[in-house]
C-alpha cells in the first residue's frame, strides 16, 4: 500500500510542483503555492502524529520494564541470586525467596498445558478440517467466548463449583479408587484449593488462545498440501497427520507457547483457587502459590518497603519470563504465517 501511495503521488507531483510558471491558470501562482505548502505541512503533522503514536508502544514497554525493575531493585540487590532459589518467604523477618512462587507458576502452567493442548488442537482440527461449514462459525464463536469470560468470574465459579467437586469427588477418586495415592503427586489430604484446581481452571482459560492460533495456522496450510495427500489415497486423518500437521507444527507450537504465556501470568482465578501458601510440595492436592497470585494477594497489605520491593521483584521476574515466552511464540507463529503466505501467494 505504501509503495503504491508513493508511486501515485510521484505520478501526481510533476504536474503539481512546477505550478509557479505554467500550471497556475486557475488559482494564481501565490494561492496555489500556499495551498501546496499547506498540504505539505498537513502531511508532515499527520506523519509526525502517527509516528508518535506508534512510538508509544516501544516507549510503554520500556517504561513498564524500567518502573518495575526500579521497584524491585532494593530486594534484588539485597538477596541477589538467592532470591530466585530460596524458598523462605517470611515478611515478618524480612527474608524473601521466590522459589515456591516460581515453582507453583511452572507447575500450574504445565498442568494447564497438558490438559488444554490436545483439546485445543482437537478443536482447531474440528474447525478447520472436520466440521460442516454451517457449524464452524458458531463453534469458533463459542470457543472465542471462553476467552471473553473474565478471570474473576472463572475464579468465582471455581470457588463455589469446581472446588467442592474436586474435594468430594475427583480427589478421593484419583487417590483411593484409582490408587494413584501411592504416587507423590496424588497423595495427601484433599482440601480443595490446590495446584490441581489452579491447573484445571487455567486449562480452560488458555484453551481458546491455543485453539485460535492453531486454527489460523491450519487454515494457512496450502490446499495443494492436502490435495496431494488425498490424491495418494490417504484417508482424511492420514492427510491431517501426514501432510497438514507437520506443515503447521511450528505454528501450533507457537500457539501453545502463547498459551503458556497466558497461563504464567493469569492472576485472579488462580489466586482464588490455589490456596496461597508459599511452599513447595510434590502433591498436586497441596496448596501453593504462583508469582501472580503472590503479588495479587500480598501487595496491598505489604508490611514494609522491603516486602513491597520483593513483590515488585517477583513482578519483574514474571515480566522477564513472559517477555521471553511471548517473543519466542510470536516469532514461531510469524515464521509459519510468513512461509504459508509466500507459498500460497
Amino acid at each position: 500500500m505504501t509503495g503504491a501511495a508513493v508511486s501515485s503521488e510521484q505520478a501526481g507531483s510533476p504536474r503539481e510542483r512546477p505550478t509557479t510558471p505554467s500550471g497556475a491558470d486557475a488559482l494564481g501562482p501565490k494561492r496555489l503555492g500556499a495551498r501546496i505548502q499547506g498540504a505539505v505541512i498537513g502531511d508532515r503533522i499527520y506523519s509526525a502524529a502517527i509516528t508518535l503514536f506508534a512510538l508509544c508502544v516501544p516507549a510503554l514497554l520500556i517504561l513498564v520494564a524500567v518502573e518495575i525493575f526500579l521497584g524491585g531493585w532494593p530486594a534484588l540487590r539485597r538477596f541477589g541470586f538467592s532470591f530466585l532459589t530460596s524458598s523462605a518467604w517470611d515478611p515478618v523477618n524480612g527474608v524473601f525467596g521466590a522459589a515456591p512462587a516460581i515453582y507453583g507458576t511452572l507447575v500450574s502452567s504445565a498442568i494447564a498445558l497438558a490438559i488444554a493442548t490436545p483439546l485445543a488442537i482437537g478443536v482447531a482440527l474440528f474447525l478447520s478440517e472436520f466440521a460442516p461449514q454451517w457449524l464452524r462459525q458458531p463453534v469458533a464463536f463459542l470457543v472465542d467466548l471462553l476467552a471473553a469470560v473474565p478471570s474473576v468470574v472463572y475464579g468465582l465459579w471455581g470457588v463455589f463449583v469446581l472446588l467442592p467437586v474436586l474435594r468430594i469427588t475427583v480427589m478421593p477418586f484419583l487417590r483411593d479408587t484409582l490408587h494413584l495415592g501411592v504416587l507423590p503427586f496424588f497423595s495427601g489430604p484433599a482440601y480443595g484449593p490446590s495446584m490441581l484446581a489452579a491447573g484445571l481452571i487455567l486449562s480452560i482459560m488458555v484453551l481458546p488462545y491455543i485453539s485460535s492460533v492453531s486454527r489460523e495456522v491450519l487454515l494457512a496450510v496450502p490446499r495443494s498440501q492436502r490435495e496431494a495427500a488425498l490424491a495418494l489415497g490417504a484417508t482424511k486423518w492420514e492427510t491431517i497427520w501426514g501432510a497438514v500437521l507437520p506443515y503447521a507444527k511450528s505454528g501450533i507450537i507457537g500457539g501453545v507457547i502463547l498459551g503458556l504465556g497466558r497461563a504464567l501470568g493469569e492472576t485472579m482465578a488462580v489466586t482464588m483457587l490455589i490456596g496461597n501458601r508459599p511452599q513447595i510440595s510434590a502433591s498436586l492436592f497441596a496448596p501453593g502459590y504462583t508469582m501472580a497470585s503472590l503479588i495479587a494477594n500480598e501487595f496491598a497489605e505489604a508490611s514494609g518497603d522491603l516486602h513491597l520491593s520483593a513483590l515488585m521483584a517477583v513482578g519483574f521476574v514474571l515480566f522477564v519470563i513472559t517477555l521471553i515466552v511471548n517473543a519466542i511464540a510470536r516469532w514461531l507463529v510469524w515464521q509459519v504465517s510468513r512461509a504459508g503466505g509466500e507459498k500460497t501467494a
Partner: protein
Amino acid sequence: MTTAAKPPTRRSGVYPAAARAGKLRRRHAVNALMAGLVGLAAVLATLPLVVVLFYLLKQGASSVQWHFFTNMPKPVGESGGGMANAIVGTLILIGTASLIGLPVGIGGGLYLAERRGSRLANTTRFLADVLNGLPSIVMGIFAWQFLVRPFGHFSAWAGGVALAAMMIPQVARTTEEIVRTVPVSLREAALALGYTRWRTSLTVVLRTATAGVVTGALVAIARIAGETAPLLFTAFGNQFWSTSLNQPIAALPLQIFTYAVSPYDDWHAQAWAGALVLIALILIISLVARVATRGRFATASD
C-alpha cells in the same frame, strides 16, 4: 501419508488382497476414531462455557433486581444491597482507559499499516504483540509504581492508565489488520484527485475501515471491562459513591472478587449477581462488535 505409501510393498504378501482389505478397514477405523475424538474435543472445549454460564444464571439471576443497579453495597445481614457504585465505577474506568488508549492505539495502527515494512513498523508490531501477552498484574504493579506511589494514594486515574496500557497494543494491531484490508485503489483514487495524504488516510482509508476499527475497539473494551488484576492496587475499589478520578473508585470485577472471597452467604449471592451483570455487559459489547462487521471484514473479530 506413510501408511498411504505402504500398500504397494504389501502386494508381495501371501494373501495380498485380503491383507490389503484388512489394512484398509483398519485405516478407515482409525480415521473414524480420530474424527470422533476431534469432535469430542470440540464438545469438551465448549462445555466449560456452557457450565459457567449455567451457574451464573442459576446463582445470580435471583439477585439481579432493580435495586441491584440503584443501591449501594450494604453491610452483611442487610438485604437490598446493590452495586450501583461499582457499575458506574467500571464505566468510568472504561471511559478513562478508552480516552487514552483508543487514539494512541488507532494512530499507532495507522502507522503500522501505512509504513508497513519499515524497520520501526516491524519492531513496533513485534513489541505490540509481546506487550499484548504481558500479564495484566504486571500492568497493575507498573501503574502502581508509576502513578500511585509518587502521589501517595490510589486513584481511578491509575486504574484507567493500567487498562489503557493493555488496550494500546491490542487496538494498534486490530486497526492495522483492518486498514490493510482497505483496497489500495481507494487510496490511489483519492490521491489522484489531489487529496493530500493526511486527508486520504483519515477521510478515505480510515473511514472505509470504520466498522472494523470500531469492532477492534469494542473487543478491546470487552477485554478490559472484566480485568481485575490491574485494578487491585490502582483503582483499589471503594465502598462509597465516588466518581472522582483522583479518588479510589469501585469496579464491578473488584467487587466480585471481594465478595467471592468473603465468608458471608449474602455477599456470595451478590458476587454471583455481579458476575452475571459483568458477563452480560461483556457479551453485549462482543455481540455488537460482531454485528457491526458481519460479513464485511472476516478477520475483524479474530
